[in-house]
C-alpha cells in the first residue's frame, strides 16, 4: 500500500530515467522478439510488386528531421523496393524540410546504385501552397514545378517526358507527419493508386481510407518501417528497435496501472490525489 502511494508521488525524472534505461538495454543487447507483418504492410508490398520496370511514381516527402525516427525507415525501404523493381521516381515536397530529406534519400539509394539523375529519378523540390499546390501539381506537375530542386527546367528531364497529369504515373506514395486527407481529395478523383506512410498518431485516422479502398496500403510509424524491412528481407534500424519499443510499451502500461491504483487508494483514504506525479520547479 505504502509503495503504491509512493509511486503516485514519484518524481517524474525517475520515470524518465527508467524509461531511458528500459529503451536503451534492448538496443545494446537485442532480445530478438518476433516481428509479425500486418496486412496493411503486405498490401503496400503487393501494390509495389505490381509495378513494372520503367513505371513512374510520385514520392512525396512531407516530414521534418524531427520525425526521421518514425518515417525514414519506411521511406528507405520503399525507395529500395522501387529501385529493385526498376521503377522511376519523381520526388516532390510540400514542406520545406522535406526537400532536404528527399534529396538525401534519393541520392543515397538511387544515386548510390548508379542510377542516372533525370532519367531514373528526379527531385522537383519544395512547392509552397499546401493543398492548393497539391491540387495544381497532380493536375499539371510540370506547370506547377517548372524547375527541379537544382534549377534545371523540369520539362528537359527525360523522366518527365509525357508527364501531363497524375494519370501518367502508376502510383503516388506519401510520407507525412501532417496530411489527413489532402491527397485523397486531390489525387483520388484521378484514380491514381495512393499509398501512405504516416507517423503513429495519424494511423487511426488513415485506416478509414484503407478500409474504403481509397488507400492501397498504409505504413504506420517506426513499426510500419520495421515490418517493411522484414518483408523486404533487409532488417535495418527500425527492426532493431522493435524490442525497445515493446519494452517501452510494457513499462508505460505499468506506469498507467500503478498510477491509477495509487490515485484511487489516495482518494479512498481521503488524501488529495496528486495526479501526474510531483512536478518539479521550473
Amino acid at each position, binding site marked *: 500500500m505504502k509503495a503504491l502511494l509512493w509511486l503516485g508521488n514519484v518524481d517524474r525524472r525517475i520515470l524518465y530515467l527508467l524509461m531511458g534505461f528500459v529503451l536503451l538495454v534492448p*538496443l545494446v543487447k537485442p532480445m530478438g522478439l518476433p516481428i509479425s507483418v500486418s496486412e496493411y504492410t503486405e498490401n503496400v508490398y503487393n501494390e509495389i510488386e505490381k509495378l513494372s520496370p520503367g513505371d513512374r511514381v510520385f514520392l512525396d516527402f512531407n516530414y521534418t528531421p524531427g520525425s526521421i525516427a518514425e518515417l525514414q525507415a519506411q521511406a528507405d525501404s520503399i525507395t529500395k523496393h522501387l529501385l529493385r523493381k526498376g521503377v522511376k521516381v519523381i520526388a516532390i515536397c510540400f514542406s*520545406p524540410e522535406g526537400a532536404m530529406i528527399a534529396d538525401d534519400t534519393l541520392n543515397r539509394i538511387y544515386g548510390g546504385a548508379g542510377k542516372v539523375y533525370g532519367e531514373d529519378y528526379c527531385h522537383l523540390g519544395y*512547392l509552397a501552397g499546401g493543398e*492548393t499546390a497539391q491540387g495544381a501539381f497532380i493536375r499539371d506537375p510540370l506547370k506547377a514545378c517548372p524547375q527541379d530542386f537544382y534549377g534545371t527546367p523540369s520539362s528537359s528531364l527525360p523522366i518527365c517526358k509525357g508527364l501531363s497529369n497524375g494519370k501518367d504515373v502508376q502510383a503516388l506514395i506519401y510520407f507525412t507527419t501532417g496530411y489527413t486527407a489532402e491527397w485523397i481529395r486531390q489525387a483520388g478523383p484521378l484514380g491514381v493508386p495512393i499509398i501512405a506512410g504516416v507517423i503513429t498518431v495519424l494511423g487511426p485516422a488513415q485506416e478509414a481510407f484503407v478500409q474504403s479502398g481509397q488507400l492501397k496500403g498504409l505504413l*504506420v510509424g517506426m513499426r510500419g518501417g520495421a515490418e517493411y524491412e522484414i518483408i523486404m528481407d533487409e532488417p535495418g534500424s527500425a527492426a532493431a528497435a522493435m524490442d525497445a519499443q515493446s519494452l*517501452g*510499451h510494457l513499462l508505460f502500461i505499468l506506469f498507467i496501472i500503478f498510477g491509477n491504483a495509487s490515485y484511487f487508494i489516495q482518494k479512498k483514504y481521503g488524501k488529495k490525489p496528486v495526479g501526474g506525479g510531483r512536478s*518539479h520547479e521550473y
Partner: protein
Amino acid sequence: MSTDVGVWVSALLTIAAYSFLWKENRFFRAVEHLFVGLGAGYGIAMGYSNIVSKAWNPITKEGKLYLLIPVIMGVMLFGRFVKSLRWTSRFPLAFIVGTGAAIALRGAVEQQFVKQIQATMMPLTSVGNLIIVVGTLCVMSYFFFTFPKNKALSSVSTVGRWILMVTFGAAFGNGVMGRISLSIGVLQTLFGEWIHLIK
C-alpha cells in the same frame, strides 16, 4: 566514439535539448533559440528559392507577365505590417481562403463523404463488418442534438459514446507509441552514431 564533427554537434545539441527533462536551464534555452532560428532561416531560403524559380525566372526570362498578378498579391500580404496599408492584405488573404476552401471541398464531397458512406455499406457476414456498421450507427446517434432522445436512442447513443472512448484510447496508445519511437531514434543517435555502444 565518433570522429565526425557533425555527429558531435548533433549529440551535444540533443543532450542540451533533453536537459529540459531535468529542469529548465540555459543550455536548453540556447538550443531552443538556435532551433527556431535555423528553422526560420531554412524556411526563408526555401521561400526565396521558390520565388526565384516559380516567379522571377519565368517573368524575366520567359516573359510570363501574368505571373505578376500573384506576385503583387503576395506583396500585398505584407501590408499588414504597415498600419495605413493593413487593408491591402485582406484581398490576397480572402483569395487564399476562398480558393483553398473551394479546392478542398471539390474533392471532399466525393472522397470523404460519398466514398466513406459507401465503405460502411457492407454485408453483415463477419464480426468485423458488423462492428463497423453497428459502431458507425451508434456513434452517429451520439451526435443527434436537435431533439430529445427517447430511452432506446439514449441507450444506442451511450454505446456510441463508449465506442468513441475506445477510439480515443487507441489514438492515445498510438501517441505513446510515436513518442517512444522518437525517443528510440534519439538513443540510436547518441549511443549508436556518437559513442558506438549500439552495434
